[in-house]
């Protein structure tokens, strides 16, 4: 019941905006978020209400996933311990207000980077930790093998308040197909309604489809169509106006990706201190003073790699080994045919 009262979260957030009296100024040289985080002793991280592979809690309340690992990396860098994270599960609708009204400091919740979100509503996207795209799931016995097989009158189940709704309209309009959108507040209801036969297709990000398919009563009776109808670069978001904090989150993510590129893993990170490659040495804090620029010590990146692992380790642990998307596709390093390419840490 209370989960649904969260429909009124916007109201709560509005009240929060009304009541918080902040002395924060844009020109402040020190990062207020960093200071507060160090004072509190934990990183406040907004995640999904349960999306296997990205952010999902087990029965004991331990969060895992590639989105979760971004927050853990920041905790390792800032506080020295990847476990010092407080996770707040948020619906698609609540997520931005939770961030702008200071309830959380990082939003790492499979959120698509778009111009209007970045520019309009007080948010800043710091990077991309998963390149996704919207797809469709159908029943195998429908004989539909491509999005071109959809006919007018098709009903499509999806989640409320996401870019999915807009992409779906663009797609069906471009094909000239009249369709029936059935939008639910929570993913569990979407799955249940699609499973019962209310909809002919279930559309959301392909990673989401792969993860949710496991929840269906007969996963093998369903398949994801090959086409991708949109670009969905998913990444962590921070509040606009704290550029130091923004840099910390951005470079925590970049460190994980760069570590994979140079073959630094959680297992060999310590031994890499004596590497011949200066780029590797910088990455493990054996050379240069990169941490100081972020207001951190020099071993911040080493801690990330040791405690959380590099991006490849995180992907394997959360997405590949769980059978969600064994094939990394575009989320492979640029050196291996993917599009993961981050600016150098130097």
């Amino acid at each position: 019941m209370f989960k649904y009262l969260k429909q009124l979260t916007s109201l709560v957030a509005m009240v929060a905006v009304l009541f918080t009296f902040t002395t924060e100024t844009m020109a402040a040289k020190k990062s207020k978020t960093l200071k507060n985080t160090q004072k509190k002793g934990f990183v406040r991280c907004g995640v999904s209400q349960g999306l296997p592979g990205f952010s999902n809690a087990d029965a004991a309340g331990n969060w895992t996933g590639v989105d979760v690992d971004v927050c853990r990396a920041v905790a390792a860098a800032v506080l020295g311990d990847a476990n010092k994270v407080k996770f707040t599960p948020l619906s698609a609708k609540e997520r931005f207000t939770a961030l702008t009204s200071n309830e959380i400091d990082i939003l790492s919740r499979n959120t698509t980077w778009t111009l209007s979100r970045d520019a309009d509503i007080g948010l800043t996207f710091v990077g991309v930790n998963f390149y996704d795209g919207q797809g469709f799931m159908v029943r195998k016995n429908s004989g539909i093998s491509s999005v071109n097989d959809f006919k007018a009158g098709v009903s499509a189940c999806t989640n409320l308040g996401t870019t999915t709704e807009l992409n779906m309209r663009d797609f069906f309009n471009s094909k000239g197909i009249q369709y029936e959108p059935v939008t639910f507040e929570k993913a569990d209801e979407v799955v249940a309604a699609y499973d019962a036969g209310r909809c002919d297709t279930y559309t959301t990000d392909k990673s989401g489809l792969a993860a949710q398919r496991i929840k269906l009563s007969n996963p093998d009776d369903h398949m994801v169509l090959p086409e991708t109808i949109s670009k969905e670069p998913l990444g962590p978001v921070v509040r606009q106006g704290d550029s130091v904090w923004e840099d910390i989150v951005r470079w925590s993510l970049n460190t994980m990706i760069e570590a994979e590129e140079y073959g630094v893993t959680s297992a060999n990170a310590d031994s890499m201190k004596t590497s011949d490659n200066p780029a590797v040495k910088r990455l493990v804090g054996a050379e240069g003073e990169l941490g100081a620029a972020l207001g951190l010590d020099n071993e911040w990146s080493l801690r990330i790699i040791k405690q959380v692992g590099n991006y490849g380790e995180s992907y394997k642990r959360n997405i590949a080994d769980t059978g969600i998307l064994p094939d990394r596709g575009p989320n492979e390093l640029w050196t291996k045919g993917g599009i993961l390419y981050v600016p150098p840490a130097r």
Partner: protein
Amino acid sequence: MNIKKILPQILTLLVVILVFGFFSYNAQINMENRGITFGYGFLSQESSFDVQFSLIEYDGSHSYFRAYLVGLLNTILVSVIGIIFATIIGVVVGIARLSNNYLINRTASIYVEFFRNIPLLLQIFFWYFAALRALPLPQDTEPMFGVFFLTIKGFFVPAFVWNNLDIFIYSIIAAIISIIFVRIYARKKQENEGIQTPVLSISIGLLLILPILSFLFGGVDASVEIPVIKQLSQSGFTFEGGIKLPPELISLALALSLYTATFIAECVRAGVQGVSKGQKEAAASIGLTPNQVLKLVVMPQALRIIIPPTTNQYLNLTKNSSLAAAIAYPDLVLVFAGTALMQTGRAIEIVSITMLTYLSLSISISIFMNWYNKKIAIKEK
């Protein structure tokens, strides 16, 4: 002027203005710091999202304001349906609880105790997923009377295609006006001569005859468009043509009416029991039939007790309809405070509009019910 009387009022006003001003100023500062702009200009922008069920023509090329209207009308629709059915069920069950028949009496009590003690959201989920489990796929459905199709994708009913619909509507308006005149005439006749006129039969007759005449002589013509099954894929079907009532609307209306009816039933029971026994006995002693006792003596007095608490139930039902978002019925909260809010990110603007809208809806219902309550109150002469 007495300064002692005015001073507290001025102070109260000042406090209100200060508190309100502090909040708006604070919100403004905070929004500025976070780079959030404020304004209602977005309402005229293209919404670019679609809605599954709408009473007015709408698609993503219309404005956010139009999307707001779609949500508002859907909220009103489910509330009106809910209020009508809740009232009917409530009155029947309320009277059944007063019945001397043990079985009827107990059944009504069990219904009331069961449905009013389970949280409404659970009931909505229950009816929705129960409906989805129980209803057949479009290709397996058996037509009712050959033209109604109840399926998991919705209840498909025939639609009327009208010629000269305006003349038909005029004929109904004419019938209603003549009924009002008949009633005035009947009342005068009873006051002057003491003779009762069968107003109800005449009214029904008028309502039937005038529209039939419009068909025969007015050139009104209606054909029926029956839904036809359509294949979407090897295993997927749907219906085309006619009118589609989505399962979300049906289960939401069902849950709302069954839940609210329990409270209305209790109001009705309280109202009827609140009329003193002496009134009934006195009415019977002057030779009124049991029907007349109920209609002329008991009900007019009971209604005065029933209306005010029932108004509360109508307000509750309207507000509870906002739980629709849980089961994908596109009401005001789902369409406007949901999708539109997400796409624009304008939380303060949209939530304030939504709150004002529910406030206006509730106040309208209150005003109407207060008017009705005054109308049926005992007029002291």
